[in-house]
């Protein structure tokens, strides 16, 4: 008996007589194998390329560690001669330039004072800014962002028009770097760029702005109240927060209206900031509204009582906490334990008893 499937197939010799599906299969197999082969070659090539690149990079890095340390800390180092020498011998390929820029930025990031200034000068003496400016003009967002980053790190100033359009770039990385650029190069009013900002600030961006303000900007702190009426909620929240971080007590009256703001997140920032500024009337303003606020604000109010109030204030809240609202109750009891350390045992027993009743 011949197998039924023999209809499909009549021997190797006669490919033309193969069933269509088998022809397709053979084509697919060849195609896949071809792709696989291409990929494997590509992977190996990439590996080889990367390894060579890596060892060159390592070499340049080691060179730079010695060069930069001697440049910064060795008084006997003949700066001019060595810089010329380095420029001539070790800044020839694009890779060398890139690694050098990166390494100088690394050093700069960890150092401040004279050493940082010295590094900024070195950067210009090596004429690395030329390379950065070329990057800035490229059309790729990542080149632009990186270039602006380097400019701002080393406070190299370029005409304002070159950077300003990027403040509202569609990529948040570019937006962020241009914000930091304006901040780090500013002599006064470092947050002026906020006036031109039209897109919300993410938490991430706020972290970096605040950090740069603290660590890079050396002039007088700006009056953050000027952005309290900004059209972007995120900018308003940011300003409220910074008023407290910079202890601008004179702005307290301007913050108070925000306790009634329609947006919950703004309200929370306002409570936090006024608490940080230890505004005495704060409890009187927030406790009456406790019942109608939502959970997050209630928590903030409890925290405020812990910090600015006393056990009596706390007790005013007690009847306003729902019996099954355990998250608030635990907060409440913890604060009670804080106010009455001698009664910790009693409070614990009481809370346990309540729990049992509930169950």
């Amino acid at each position, binding site marked *: 008996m011949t197998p039924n499937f023999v209809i499909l197939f009549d021997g190797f010799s006669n490919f033309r007589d193969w069933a269509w599906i088998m022809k397709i299969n053979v084509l697919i197999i060849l195609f896949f194998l071809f792709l696989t082969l291409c990929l494997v070659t590509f992977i190996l090539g990439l590996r080889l390329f990367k390894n060579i690149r890596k060892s060159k990079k390592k070499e340049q890095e080691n060179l730079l*560690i010695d060069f930069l*340390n*001697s440049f*910064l*800390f*060795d008084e006997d180092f003949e700066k001019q001669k060595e810089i010329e020498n380095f420029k001539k011998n070790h800044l020839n390929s694009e890779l060398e330039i890139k690694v050098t820029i990166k390494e100088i930025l*690394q*050093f700069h*990031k*960890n*150092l*401040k*004072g*004279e*050493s*940082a200034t010295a590094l900024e000068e070195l950067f210009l003496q090596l004429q690395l800014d030329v390379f950065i400016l070329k990057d800035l003009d490229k059309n790729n967002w990542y080149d632009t962002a990186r270039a602006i980053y380097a400019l701002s790190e080393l406070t190299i100033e370029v005409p304002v028009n070159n950077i300003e359009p990027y403040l509202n770039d569609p990529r948040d990385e570019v937006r962020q770097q241009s914000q930091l650029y304006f901040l780090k190069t500013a002599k006064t009013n470092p947050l002026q760029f906020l006036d031109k900002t039209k897109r919300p600030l993410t938490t991430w961006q706020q972290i970096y702005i605040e950090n740069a303000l*603290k*660590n890079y900007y050396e002039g007088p702190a700006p009056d953050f109240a000027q952005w309290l009426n900004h059209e972007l909620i995120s900018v308003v929240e940011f300003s409220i927060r910074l008023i407290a971080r910079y202890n601008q007590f004179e702005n307290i009256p301007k913050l108070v209206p925000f306790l009634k703001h329609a947006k919950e997140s703004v309200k929370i920032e306002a409570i936090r900031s006024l608490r940080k500024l230890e505004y005495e009337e704060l409890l009187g303003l927030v406790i009456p509204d406790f019942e109608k606020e939502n959970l997050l604000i209630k928590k903030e109010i409890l925290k405020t009582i812990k910090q600015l109030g006393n056990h009596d204030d706390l007790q005013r809240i007690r009847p306003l906490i729902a019996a099954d609202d355990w998250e608030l109750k635990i907060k409440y009891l913890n604060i009670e334990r804080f106010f009455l350390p001698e009664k910790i045992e009693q409070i614990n027993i009481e809370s346990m008893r309540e729990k049992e009743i509930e169950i």
Partner: protein
Amino acid sequence: MKKILVIEDNPMVIKSLEFKLTKDGHEVLIAKDGREAMKFLKEANFDLILTDLMLPFVTGKELISYIKKNLPKTPIIVLSTSTQENIIMDAFNMGVDDFITKPFSPNELSLRVKRFLNKA
């Protein structure tokens, strides 16, 4: 010559500290992580310890707690990225003598180190 133990995991910072402090005429020993630092602390005595807080293997805090218990006379300077009040307060509460934040000025650091070494 005074002996300083530097506990730090950022290679760039290590190089700079080593370079600068050696130039100042101190003997500098480097521990790249908390475990190595523990080993050095058990083997030798130091006139000053300069440590980061976030370290591989053993945290800076644990090291400080160990030093305070076993070598209470050795001054400790923390060199850390953290600038948050509560972290700095925690460190001082544990008994460190000085707190320098990164980015740091090598000249200032060198002065503070000298001050502690002269006190002793």
